[in-house]
């Protein structure tokens, strides 16, 4: 499906998945923080919505309840915050975000809980 390894490495072909461009979490200026009181799957306690998971260009949001963001690789592009239909995701300045957000999201340098993506290995974001 990817062609031969030989050909793949003559070009820059890779599978979609977190980390293909290195640890891009350090690029981030603002981090997305999920408000579980507004997030649809959290409110329903069931698999639902997952628009953030669908739109994340780096596959760093898990398809779980609650959705977990892998800050090791999240570049802070804010597409999830833009797309979230219930405005449950807020972009918080990295300079401010270390004070009160540990409860809701893990610090990048402490490694976020492995996302569902990482658990299952790379797979297409269908």
């Amino acid at each position, binding site marked *: *499906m*990817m*062609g*031969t*390894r030989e*050909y*793949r*490495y*003559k*070009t*820059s*072909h*890779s*599978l*979609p*998945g*977190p*980390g*293909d*461009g*290195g640890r891009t979490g350090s690029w981030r200026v603002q981090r997305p923080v999920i408000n579980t009181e507004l997030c649809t799957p959290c409110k329903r306690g069931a698999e639902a919505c997952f628009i953030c998971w669908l739109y994340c260009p780096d596959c760093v949001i898990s398809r779980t309840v609650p959705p977990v963001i892998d800050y090791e690789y999240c570049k802070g592009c804010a597409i999830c915050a833009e797309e979230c239909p219930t405005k449950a995701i807020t972009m918080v300045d990295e300079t401010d975000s270390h004070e009160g957000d540990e409860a809701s999201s893990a610090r990048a340098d402490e490694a976020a809980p492995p996302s569902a993506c990482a658990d299952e290995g*790379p797979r*297409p*974001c269908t």
Partner: protein
Amino acid sequence: MHIIENGNVAAALGVKLAGAQVIAAYPITPQTPLTEKLAEFIEAGEMRAQYIPVESEHSALAACIAASSTGARAFTATSANGLLYMHEQIHWAAGARLPIVMCVVNRAVGAPWCIWNDHQDSISQRDTGWIQMYACDHQQIIDGVLKAFALAEATSIPVMLCYDGYLLSHTYMPFEVPDEGKVGRFLKPFKPPYALDPANPANLNTVTLPDVRMDVLGEMAHGYMEIRYLLQEDLRAALSVGQEIEDEFASIFGRGGNALVEPYRCDDADYVVVGMGSLTYQLRDVVEALRDEGHKIGVLGIRLYRPFPDQAVAEALGAVRGVFVIEKALSYGYEGALCSDLKAALYEHLVKGGGNGGPAEDGRDRGQPAFVKGLVAGIGGRDIRTLDLTDALRAGMAATAGGGAKGAPAEERPDWIGIKL
């Protein structure tokens, strides 16, 4: 089938025979009749391909890059400023290792605007990582398109087939149209090493780090530098792949022979004049005239310019007294690019390599490289008169005759044949 047609039609027939599946092109003189012909073939149902009309040459090549990424055989064609407008995508196609074929119908580049022939457009693309072939007549155009697809697909490197605007594109000449059955034996269906597949998404040529990296499969993937190194390695290897394809073509169709250089009366020559494209066939008349005067002179046509056939060039010129390189292009601020390439090849193989072992059995010295004189002609379509070529070469040979066996010519900068200042 033997027909009389113009060079653009020869190219279009070649593309049709090659079974190109996607054609994206933007019209520009003198390439226009080629793409019009392809559009006609498709409209008439003679060719099963998709023609993508685009708003620019940049888009034309971008469409071909996308088509080739899906595993389609893709073709485009352009000239002059259209080629330059593609430039960014030209580099991309090579780095992405897509076997696209493009005909470059050689034309001068602006400013000032000039629609007539020279080689500045394609020579300016020599460092993009594409293979460049130069055709001398209509037979080499139609055969060349087929060989270009074979070479591109064998090496995963895109190929430019260059031929002279007007001099070939708009003149009528008899040539043989390859038999469809034989083409099927020569050019196998395109089996891409990778084809875009929505069911199995992949990242193609995204930001690639300076160093190697662990990919998501946990395998060490190349960095940018390794990927570019492999392009260079494969381009150098394309010299022998190109010759193998030429041999295969010759065994099926009974014509062709040397994919790299085309020597004419070089065997006993003291002087050889080197060029590319239709000029090298015109030079055969010049050589015949000078031979009648007693000069031992031959012509060496460069058929494959990138990768540069340095070894073949050095072998062909190792025993001659002097080399004249006539070019329709310049690396402005120095000299013609071919002239520099050729001198580098002679230095590499004859000076650094210690020569070819001194005087050979026939008494001709192979231990020292020839002098090389660059000449510029036909810029912007200036008529290259056979008489002017004859005079320039006769004068060039006379200037070196008294200066010892390998005396350097007095004037080092290229002479401009036919300049009226």
